């Protein structure tokens, strides 16, 4: 009996086409899984759009964002799609050129904070003892420091607080929460049997951390990274808005700074602040959607639901724990060929 089963499996790929596809399908799925999630897909699309804008921005911008002109405070028109500010500078160009500053600061700060958080958190969780106490105390200190005032003080003290400086300051102050979450998860992981087994077989500590513990933290690290990027973008925009960072360096916060200082709201110049605000909201939404996508990917319970959100809506299914949905309608219609059996 066992041999006949094997024979069927061996014959399948070379046999009928439909059986061959059936065998191939499971292998194809994992790579595209993330992209099949509509939330993640929308988030990535927005992020990619801004990413392209950040790279090619200075070349595609219709005007030099610092170029003053005689068209003062003009509403959107054919010449200036998003209007002009009080000195006649083109706002669309400011937004396009400013994208790079926002994204670079966000990514650098997010990366820095995540790397610091992983190093501190995983080390603290894994070594235990005095090292854990010290590192935990350090993260606790950074947790209770009010972040934005600290950033303002540091940024104001530095002689030339450019984009990268701001990114580094945000990164250095924003790692503590991630470190604390990772430490807790590492503490739980290092007691699991597979880590004990790796230790018993004589694996080196760094290999246990890299090969056994870190892969299990991927989802938390990814989600933490996306969250930190969101925080960094908002911090940087805030700093620019209140005028801490040089106002000559364009980002969306700088636009809001000029708009605020020149009473855009009172003058009814909505084109001055609405587009920049929308861009910030869009970027934040994109990052949040990606975070949802990661959540639905790593949580098997959410996975099937997240992957088939549209199908579920169409069929009127609301998946809940404890109340299994009952759908009698499509049972036979959805399965051609079932009737013949």
């Amino acid at each position, binding site marked *: *009996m*066992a041999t*006949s*089963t094997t024979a069927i499996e061996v014959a399948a790929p070379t046999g009928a086409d439909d059986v061959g596809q*059936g065998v191939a399908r499971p292998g194809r799925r994992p790579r595209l899984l993330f992209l099949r999630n509509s939330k993640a897909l929308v988030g990535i699309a927005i992020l990619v759009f801004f990413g392209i804008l950040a790279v090619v921005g200075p070349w595609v911008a219709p005007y030099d964002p610092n170029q003053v002109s005689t068209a003062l405070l003009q509403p959107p028109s054919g010449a200036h799609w998003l209007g002009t500010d009080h000195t006649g500078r083109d706002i669309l160009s400011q937004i396009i050129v400013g994208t790079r500053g926002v994204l670079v600061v966000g990514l650098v700060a997010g990366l820095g904070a995540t790397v610091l958080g992983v190093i501190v958190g995983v080390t603290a969780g894994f070594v235990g003892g005095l090292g854990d106490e010290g590192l935990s105390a350090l993260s606790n200190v950074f947790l209770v420091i009010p972040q934005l005032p600290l950033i303002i003080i540091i940024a104001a003290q530095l002689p030339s607080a450019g984009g990268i400086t701001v990114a580094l300051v945000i990164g250095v102050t924003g790692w503590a929460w991630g470190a604390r979450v990772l430490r807790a998860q590492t503490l739980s992981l290092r007691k699991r049997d597979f880590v004990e087994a790796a230790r018993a077989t004589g694996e080196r500590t760094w290999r246990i951390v890299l090969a056994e513990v870190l892969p299990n933290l991927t989802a938390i690290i990814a989600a933490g990274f996306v969250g930190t990027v969101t925080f960094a973008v908002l911090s940087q925009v805030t700093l620019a808005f209140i005028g801490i960072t040089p106002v000559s360096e364009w980002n969306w916060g700088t636009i809001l700074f000029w708009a605020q200082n020149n009473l855009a709201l009172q003058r009814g110049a909505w084109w001055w602040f609405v587009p920049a605000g929308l861009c910030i909201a869009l970027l934040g939404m994109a990052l949040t959607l990606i975070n949802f996508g990661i959540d639905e990917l790593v949580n098997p*319970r959410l996975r*099937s*639901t997240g*992957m*088939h959100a549209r*199908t*579920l809506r169409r069929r009127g*299914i609301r*998946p*809940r*724990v*404890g*109340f*299994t*949905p*009952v*759908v*009698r309608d*499509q*049972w036979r219609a*959805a399965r051609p060929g079932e009737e*013949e*059996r």
Partner: protein
Amino acid sequence: MSEPVLEIRDLHVDYGFGDDPTHVLRGVDLTLHRGEVLGLAGESGCGKSTLAYAATRLLPPPGLITGGEVWLADRQGRRSDVLGLTDAQLRAARWRDVAIVFQGAMSSLNPVFRIGRQLTDGIRAHRPGLSAGDLEARAAELLEMVGISADRLRAYPHQLSGGMRQRVMIAMALALEPQVLLMDEPTTALDVVMQRQVLEQIMELRDRLGFSVVLITHDVSLLVEVADRIAIMYAGEIVEEATASEVYRRPRHPYSAGLLGSFPPLHGPRRELSGIPGAPPDLQRLGPGCPFAPRCPHAMDVCRDVRPVLGPPRTGEDRRVACHLHDADLVAAGVGEGSGAISGVGLPPELAR
């Protein structure tokens, strides 16, 4: 036979919300009568637990019930279709009319609350009017009922042994005197001595309180001893259903025979353990025929093309089997003529006793 308290008709369950869900239950019919112990046996992954969870609509996503009816009688004898109940009705019916002892019940207790508090939780939710004293008294009564002294009410779960924790779970399930008790492998985590004690306890309580039990397990020898009737499941279908002694002495389905041949008999002459060759089928790729055909030692041509229907065997006994070997119509039509297994006396010796 007494009236049915739980009647499952043509239940279909899918796993997965996508375009190609896995059909894990394919038209299951099962009836539980008042006061009866119905055993549900089969290999891992054959759908035993899925059946219990679907019948109570506790199946977590991505489970989906795609067809059928589950008629549950309440204490007054009114019957309602569980699949058509509203959320509030379902909440009210659970625990009051049907209760479940879960698989791995030992870890279902919350480690930070005392036993007494956890026992009264459900009662409080269903009978909000009861006073604290009444609740306490009821919890003590329940605990005594399963053979644990009432002073353990103030104990935490870690202070109890595995068997005691299992009993607490059973007491909890019986708190509102349900008509139907579903037990999903209630003794799997216990040693054999404890298994027997716990099961004897359940049977004694059943005799006293008169509820009905669906006992899910893969331990057929256990079922043969405690169950009144046994249903054997394979690949999401019930392949045989008969009284326990009938299944034990005269299995009609080759799969039942294989299951019974894979554990040593407690009494009688020693025999060689046979087991069942092969592995359970992939539910995503089932052929049109009998799902057991690839592993069946008596498979005929018709088995690979036509799915057998669960019905009375051709001998006319009061039992149901889904196998072409016992299909009266098929034999009358002479489909199996000359195939050896079905001609002459008709049945392979181990299925014809």
